[in-house]
Structure formats: C-alpha cells, structure tokens
C-alpha cells in the first residue's frame, strides 16, 4: 500500500501536501492524523506542526482479489481468480481443477464464498458493490435447471390440482422460479417461511 507522512502548519496543509505527493484525489486517501498542530506560546515556543499519515485506499477489486487468493491458499486449493469491475457489481470468475469442491452441494460453498467476499469488500464505508462469483458456468446451468424444474412442477400442479412446496432456496433462486412462472395462466407462485428456510409454493391459479 502506498503511503506518505507529511507535515504542515495545519492538518489541511499536510493533507494537501500528501495529495500532491501521491498524485491522487483526496477522496482516494485514508488520512490518519499523527500529530495535532499547536500554536505554542506567542506563536514561537512549543509550536508544533501537524503531521498526517496518508495512504491510498485500495479499491474493492484489489481487496476481493487478495481476499480470495489468500482464502484459497489457506484452503489448500490452487485457483486463479479473475475479477472484473462492472460498475455496481464485481464479477469474479474462478478457474482451477477442484471446482466441484468450491461449488459445493447446490452451490452452497460458492454462495458462502460469495457472501463472505461481499462482506469483506463492503466493510469500508463507501459505495456498496454487489459480488457475483461464478465458475465453469455454474450459475447459468443452475438457472436452467431451476427453470426446467419450475415448468415441470407447474405441470404437475395443473394435473393433480395440489400445491407443491419446493425445498428452501436463497432469494436469487426463488426469484428464478417466480419469474419462470409469472405469466402462467394455470398456476401462481408465492414464498412462505423465514430465511434461510424460505420456500416457494406453486399453487393452482
């Protein structure tokens, strides 16, 4: 991390000097006041200058990359992490051998890693960024599976005239079920229960 220590007659002056030395705008700096300025007696004795420590904030892309690289190293996995910044979302692609282990049962490990990463990068106050982690096209495949499941179960509800309660799913997966069946003329969907056991119900319209 790039940082400098600067002094000035006021804190403001020291910060401006740091901005000039690091060559980035002020909002990209973390400022730590090391010493408050003191005017001293008669402006001569005991006079102290302001000292600040200024360091360039790491962007979320770097923080995510570092976090995941260290995490996989500690998990004993050899995985490449590719981070793409899409504005309000960080799209992260994982490449490696043992991806089944990283995805986990119904993607639960991938979701856990994604959740932890979003907590870590959004720890510091500035603008919230969404994190999407994918590997080997898992998200796309899962979405297709859920859409197929939704259509199949909708047919069954139509046939048997009985409601079907699906297994618990996260909000993202539930949305896929709802959106697949939203224009159906024969069934409707809603969710019931509390997170993390919230389930979609498909029932006759």
């Amino acid at each position, binding site marked *: 991390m790039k940082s400098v220590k600067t002094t000035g007659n006021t804190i403001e002056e020291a910060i401006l000097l740091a901005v000039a030395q690091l060559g980035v705008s002020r909002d990209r700096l973390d400022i730590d006041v090391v010493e408050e300025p003191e005017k001293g007696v008669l402006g001569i004795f005991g006079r102290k200058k302001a000292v600040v420590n200024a360091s360039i904030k790491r962007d979320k892309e770097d923080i995510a990359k570092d*976090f995941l690289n*260290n*995490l996989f190293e*500690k*998990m*004993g*996995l050899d995985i490449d992490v590719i981070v793409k910044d899409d504005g309000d979302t960080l799209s992260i692609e994982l490449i490696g051998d*043992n991806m089944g*282990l*990283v995805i*986990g049962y119904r993607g*639960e*490990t991938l*979701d*856990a*890693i994604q*959740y*932890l990463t979003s*907590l*870590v990068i959004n*720890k510091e106050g500035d603008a919230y960024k969404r994190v999407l982690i994918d590997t080997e096209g898992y998200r796309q495949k899962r979405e297709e599976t859920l859409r197929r499941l939704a259509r199949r179960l909708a047919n069954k509800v139509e046939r048997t005239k009985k409601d079907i309660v699906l297994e618990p799913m996260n909000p993202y997966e539930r949305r896929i079920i709802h959106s697949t069946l939203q224009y159906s003329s024969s069934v409707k969907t809603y969710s019931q229960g509390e*997170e*993390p056991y919230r389930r979609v119900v498909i029932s006759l319209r």
Partner: protein
Amino acid sequence: MGELVKYIAQALVDNPEEVTVNEVEGEQSVIIELKVAPEDMGKVIGKQGRIAKAIRTVVKAAATKENKRVIVEII
C-alpha cells in the same frame, strides 16, 4: 484449518489483532474455537447466524479434502 478460520475472521472484524483461534484435536474431528473482540461478535455471527454459517460452510469444504470433520465454535 485453524489458520483458515482465523484469516476469514480477521478479514471481517474491526479489531483483527483480537482474533484468536484454538484447535482441539479429536479422533476424527477438530474443534476450532474462535474468539473475537466483544464488539466484533456480530461481524462473525451475523443476522440469524448467516455469517457464522458461511464460515462453517467454507471450512467444511476445505476439511472434506482432508477427510476431517471440523466444528467451528464461536466463544
């Protein structure tokens, strides 16, 4: 495995220097006791234990590789 838990916890909390882990080895399982500063408890547990669950899921995945059962306890 303790180091993995410690790393994740330190990345989440405000006082990383106060994160400690203690590993208790059993025959087929390991218990990892995680301790953080009182004001950081929420940061490793989360609403309805969601963060704690995510930590356990990641640790469990890493442990499968070594055929071990790992229990993470937050104390």
